[in-house]
């Protein structure tokens, strides 16, 4: 009891900060039954069924640590809406804890209440408001933000200390932080950040360079690489394919993106984005009754940087001055990087951002994510130096007031219901009455058809009709649901989804032509069948013009019995396509058949191909690996895998005595993956697998062993400490 009292007394400021964040989570509860869908984001739902596809599919293991928590919550029966509060909690509590760790390691003599206030500022500021009033916060996407302070603190500690055991906290945080690289561009930006930080630590003589430090840096780099190797390895073949594509086709787009997302110096200083300026707080202002206050808050948004700037006048000498100058220099460099191709940084940055690897840093947030931490560190340094001096109280009172105003929506509630980016142009600022909302309530029938799809053991796919595209690639427009974002079918069902508004068959956006009246509409179901689509959601909640335009085609296809209704309600009709039109998951053909990305003649070619193929039996030996007995294959035939075209699918012939030989890919086939088999022994088999997943498995072993080593080392060090 006494111990508890002592801990409560010693940690009262830290606990008070936690209580404030608890209020933030409480006051920002999300309306029951809603999920987040908007922009490029669909909140990961149904994780108890989807975690494996997250792990092995799109993210190749990179985000599994993060989503393990949500998997457990899903298993425990926490609703999708309830999980939204968990996303917010993980982020704000994580950022708070992480910054507290940093402050205690790097500025150890700072009063605890001051540390708590600065950690609160780091957790709730205009940047974190950007994260949660956009839809990014409800995914893994920005989670690196949480780890930056703890990584920085433990890194500085590891370099300053002469004890090898002081590297273990850094390694433990690196293990957790490895889940931040769902978008590997963040790994690139983190590398740049640490490179600059290390150089500045030496320049400002916070760490003295000698061979011992060089060795320690080498150990930290090798350890960090090994702990991250599980996602780096599968990325190597993917990056090679990505770099090829980049150098061939998207250079102009890169220049455009760099120009579009460039940031002014003054916006970086106050943590705002110049691009989409009016979409986020304080420019997107939710307090309509005091609309004039917006201008005051815009004005005040400069105050934290002014305080930092005035810090340049107060330092006399010492370690803290050197730290302050190091972080200030870092901020100056990041202002230049975040500005991208904007004057006066354009001539250097045009070259820099086109370097291989660096060209992944297209979005503003890839580098801007570090600026709130640098600013918060500078403020912490400033106030800890000013503490006890004449102007401290005034400066701190100004800061507290401004910090509160700049993060006010966190404390008043409504980050998505009133403040969402999608409501920026809505006069009422109310998600319930707005034309579109990022909070979407999916009607019950969307959930209930999962049983129908789940009960079909055949590997086939789901797609949608009519053509009702959203504002960008990968988004659909369902106004009746107030939704403009990814189709929820992506996450609700275990079957794969063929994007309506994206490139599945080469670069052909075939859905653009769904409403074209010049062709027999059967080409649509022929094409869907070729791609292995068995189920079609016909959205009655789509745009009225799209419904009207497609209605004759729907009636025609239904009348011919090609589209057969299974479930009908006011939101959608779930059709299945007559099986005779649907291509199997694995099949063999006597020839390799290329199909032009053109509607003219498409149906004839597909039907001709269909008459010449034979479905092949197969066993699934892994999530992205199958084994096909060679007995069903003729000499010189071709084997097809009905997955989206990806040159990283490989096929090997395994002879009866176990010898393996790689089959030749037929890259002219873009609607599936095909290989030439040659002559095979019927007793042999064909192994078809995804190359990145094989790399992932090797990487997981390496990272796993390293992690166990780190844990063992940490335990050993703590035992030695305990024994004196």
């Amino acid at each position, binding site marked *: 009891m006494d111990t508890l009292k002592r801990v409560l007394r010693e940690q009262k400021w830290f606990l008070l900060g936690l209580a404030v964040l608890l209020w933030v989570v409480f006051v920002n509860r999300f309306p029951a039954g809603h999920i987040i869908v908007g922009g490029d984001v669909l909140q990961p739902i149904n994780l108890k069924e989807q975690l494996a596809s997250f792990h092995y599919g799109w993210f190749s293991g990179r985000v599994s640590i993060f989503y393990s928590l949500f998997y457990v919550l899903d298993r425990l029966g926490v609703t999708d809406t309830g999980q939204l509060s968990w996303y917010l909690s993980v982020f704000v509590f994580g950022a708070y804890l992480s910054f507290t760790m940093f402050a205690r390691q790097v500025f150890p003599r700072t009063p605890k209440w001051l540390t708590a206030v600065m950690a609160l500022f780091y957790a709730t500021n205009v940047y974190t408001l950007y994260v949660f009033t956009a839809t990014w916060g409800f995914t893994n996407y920005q989670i690196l933000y949480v780890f930056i302070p703890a990584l920085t603190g433990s890194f500085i500690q590891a370099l300053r200390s002469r004890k090898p055991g002081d590297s273990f906290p850094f390694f433990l945080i690196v293990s957790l932080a490895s889940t931040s690289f769902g978008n590997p561009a963040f790994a690139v930006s983190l590398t740049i950040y640490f490179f600059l930080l290390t150089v500045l630590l030496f*320049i*400002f*003589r916070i760490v003295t360079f000698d061979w011992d430090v060089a060795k320690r840096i080498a150990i930290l780099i090798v350890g960090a690489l090994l702990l991250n190797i599980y996602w780096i390895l599968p990325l190597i073949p993917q990056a090679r394919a990505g770099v090829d594509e980049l150098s061939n086709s998207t250079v102009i787009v890169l220049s455009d993106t760099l120009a579009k997302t460039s940031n*002014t*110096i*003054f916006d970086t*200083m106050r943590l705002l984005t110049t691009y989409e300026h009016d979409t986020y707080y304080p420019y997107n202002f939710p307090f309509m009754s005091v609309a004039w206050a917006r*201008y005051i808050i*815009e*004005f005040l948004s*400069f105050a934290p*940087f*002014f305080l930092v*700037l*005035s810090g*340049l*006048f107060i330092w006399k*000498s010492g370690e803290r*001055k*050197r730290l302050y*100058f190091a972080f*200030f*220099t870092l901020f*100056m460099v990041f*202002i230049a990087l975040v500005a991208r191709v904007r*004057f*006066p940084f354009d001539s250097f940055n045009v070259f820099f951002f086109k370097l291989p690897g660096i060209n992944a840093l297209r979005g503003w947030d890839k580098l801007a994510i570090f600026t709130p931490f640098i600013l918060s560190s500078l403020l912490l340094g400033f106030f800890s130096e000013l503490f006890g001096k004449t102007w401290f109280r005034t400066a701190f009172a100004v800061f507290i007031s401004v910090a509160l105003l700049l993060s006010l929506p966190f404390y008043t509630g409504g980050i998505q219901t009133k403040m969402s980016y999608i409501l920026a142009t809505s006069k009422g600022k109310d998600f319930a009455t707005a034309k579109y909302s990022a909070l979407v309530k999916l009607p019950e029938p969307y959930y209930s058809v999962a049983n129908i799809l789940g009960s079909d053991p055949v590997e086939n796919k789901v797609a949608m009709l009519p053509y009702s595209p959203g504002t960008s690639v990968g988004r659909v427009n369902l106004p009746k649901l107030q939704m403009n974002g990814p189709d929820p079918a992506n996450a609700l069902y275990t079957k794969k989804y063929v994007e309506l508004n994206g490139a599945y068959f080469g670069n052909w956006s075939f859905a653009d032509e769904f409403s074209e009246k010049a062709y027999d509409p059967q080409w649509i179901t022929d094409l869907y069948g070729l791609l292995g689509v068995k189920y079609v959601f016909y959205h009655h909640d789509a745009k009225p013009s799209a419904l009207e335009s497609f209605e004759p085609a729907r009636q025609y296809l239904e009348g011919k019995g090609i589209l057969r209704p299974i479930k009908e309600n006011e939101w959608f009709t779930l059709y299945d396509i007559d099986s005779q039109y649907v291509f199997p998951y694995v099949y063999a053909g006597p020839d390799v058949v290329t199909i032009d990305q053109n509607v003219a003649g498409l149906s004839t070619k597909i039907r001709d191909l269909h008459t010449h193929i034979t479905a092949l039996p197969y066993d699934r030996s892994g999530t992205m690996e199958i084994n096909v007995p060679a007995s069903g294959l003729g000499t010189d035939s071709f084997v097809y895998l009905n997955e989206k075209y990806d040159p990283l699918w490989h096929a090997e012939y395994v002879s009866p005595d176990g010898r393996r030989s790689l089959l030749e890919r037929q890259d002219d086939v873009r609607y599936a993956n095909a290989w030439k088999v040659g002559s095979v022994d019927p007793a042999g088999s064909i192994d078809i697998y995804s190359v990145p997943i094989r790399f992932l498995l090797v990487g997981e072993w390496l990272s796993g062993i390293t992690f166990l080593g780190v844990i063992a080392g940490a335990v050993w060090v703590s035992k030695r400490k305990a024994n004196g």
Partner: protein
Amino acid sequence: MEQNEKQFDAVLTFVSKRKIDMGIMFASIIFGMFLNWSVIGIAIFAVFIWSIIGPIPSRVLALPALFFLAFTPILLAMGRNAQAEEFSIYAYYFLVMAVVRGVVEVREEKTANREQ
């Protein structure tokens, strides 16, 4: 009159004592003209060079930065965004100068501490 002559003598003495520094300053101005920079650009570059060879303390260099930055929110409020950006660029230049001087100051301080 005598006062003016005294001041003029002081300037001459200063210039004659720091001939090399004056040469560098002159060269920096010619360099800016050669690259076709604006007058303000050349002036800021000259201040930058002087901040190193002068030297000018970092806190003095931070003053013009504060001055230019103080106008930025006012210009933004007036809807003069281009001018606000221009002022913030000038502020940035002075901040970079302050940082460069800061590096020198910190390193000199550390060296002095070691010698003591």
